[in-house]
């Protein structure tokens, strides 16, 4: 056994760095988290002092008997993919463009972060107004430029509601990815670009050979956070559509909320949350492993 006091001291002093975070985490995250997992094996209405033990019953229910949960999962997968492509693509392009030498860059940077600052109630108000079937600007504009046939109740028809919600999501969240990409771009040394330019590289090559590869760690962080944000997004959906029409904009977060607070099945809600979390976690682990392989 390779034991030494020096190593123990080393470990001990290293632990100090993690200690404050762990203390808070154990109290306010781990404890509720473990209680939550415990709850998945019971049925509880949220108020009663009694709980009924159901063993794996909740898990069986969610995995095999809850079609709406999986439909909601497909919905949120759609939102996530749109988020990953549109949202992150947009933020990346914008970050690259306003990094420094653009006129008014500072102003652009401030403006692009306005959407995340607006409370959900304002966002919903504005977008409902834009997407209004009769009086919304979108439909009015379509009618004015002759595309009146395309004007439809965006939030009120099964085929377009989810797409409409995803647009609102992209709009209100791209600011976060934008800021992170900006931060990430700072980590790329100027000298690399200068050297490449001397070798005769054009803008596109600079972007694809230097920027993108060096941004991969940041992109991983951003995509994991985007996935997290999209999957856990609740406020926006709750306030815009609450799952309508006919469940086409249901997302797991909404169903978890309904299960807990309206149907009073906290055990089942906790189970859905755990299953959802595990899926996300696994996806993210895969992403992290992939990115480690790509950036070497």
């Amino acid at each position, binding site marked *: 056994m390779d034991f030494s006091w020096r190593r123990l001291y080393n470990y001990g002093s290293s632990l100090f760095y993690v200690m404050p*975070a762990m203390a808070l985490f154990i109290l306010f995250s781990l404890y509720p988290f473990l209680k939550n997992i415990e709850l998945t094996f019971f049925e509880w209405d949220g108020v009663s002092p009694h709980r009924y033990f159901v063993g794996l019953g909740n898990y069986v229910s969610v995995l095999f008997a809850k079609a709406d949960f999986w439909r909601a999962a497909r919905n949120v997968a759609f939102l996530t993919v749109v988020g990953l492509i549109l949202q992150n693509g947009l933020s990346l392009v914008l970050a690259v463009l306003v990094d420094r*030498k653009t006129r008014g860059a500072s102003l652009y940077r401030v403006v692009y972060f306005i959407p995340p600052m607006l409370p959900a109630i304002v966002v919903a108000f504005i977008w409902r107004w834009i997407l209004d079937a009769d009086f919304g600007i979108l439909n009015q504009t379509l009618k004015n430029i002759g595309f009146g046939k395309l004007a439809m109740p965006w939030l009120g028809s099964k085929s377009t509601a989810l797409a409409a919600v995803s647009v609102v999501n992209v709009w209100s969240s791209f600011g976060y990815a934008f800021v992170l990409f*900006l931060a990430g771009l700072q980590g790329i040394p100027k000298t690399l670009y200068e050297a490449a330019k001397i070798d005769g590289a054009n803008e596109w090559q*600079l972007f694809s050979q230097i920027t993108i590869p060096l941004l991969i760690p940041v992109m991983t*962080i951003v995509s994991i956070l985007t996935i997290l944000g999209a999957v856990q997004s609740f406020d926006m959906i709750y306030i815009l559509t609450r799952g309508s029409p006919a469940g086409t904009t249901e997302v797991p977060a909404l169903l978890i909320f309904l299960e807990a607070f309206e149907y009073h099945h906290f055990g089942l809600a906790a189970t859905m949350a755990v299953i959802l979390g595990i899926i996300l976690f696994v996806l993210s682990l895969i992403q992290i492993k992939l990115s480690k392989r790509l950036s070497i």
Partner: protein
Amino acid sequence: MSVYHLKNSTLKIFKHTFLILVAALCLFPLLWLISSSLKSRTGVMTDLSLVPSEFHWENYIQAWNRGELGIYLFNSFFYTAIAVFGVLFIASLAAYGFARLQFPGKEIIYYTLLLSMFVPIPASFIPIFVLLMKMHLLNTRLGYLLPLINGGLPVAIFIFRGFFESIPTDLEDAARIDGSGKWGIYWRIVLPLSKPVIAAVAIFNCLGAWKEFLLALVVFSDKHLMPVQRGLVEFQGQYSITYNLMFAGIVITIVPVLLFYALMQKNIVKGLTEGAIKA
């Protein structure tokens, strides 16, 4: 990337048009919010123009008084400031530990931390409430701040660790040869190099803490401890919302965050990488 001098002028036009379009899409709602806040109660719904027909500046005074925004704003400033500093300090410490230091169970602890980020807990406020009650911290500022700071930790640690790990190790090795200990490396090398990330995390947590409401409502009983979001509730009646006053209140609450962001975002682009590498 100042090396991107887009000499081609049509590309330049495209670039600026694109930037302006997106900016307009982002700015328009804010302008609309401000404009609605200056309209009369009935005008919010009927007067659709961006420029209000009459400017009801008194909405702001009314919003301030009715919403008792003075004391609430003070509380929000306090909570947000503590939360931001708390998260920055604690998370960067922890992330440095995970990124650069060794101790048993490091990865298990880290992934448990991450797992908590991924599994949403329905009604997490219930166990937190019971815990705070047992600790006699209900209705206290400390009782609110602790879970608030904790809420921002997983994401912050995740972001920090990612960025810390991508810092080239030669700088740290050089410092270690010069006799720097763990703390020295953290304080004098890693942190200064991470100014952009720190600014980003500061912004995210500022926004998160500022917007937080449910935990505050559950933990606090006394009105004078509540954050600013409580003030906005004054305009929500059971059946209808007084939109013009509420929007005025919202504008008042957005201004501090916007200012903070405007200040911070300059830090994001103030890269010091070149200086460090040259040294």
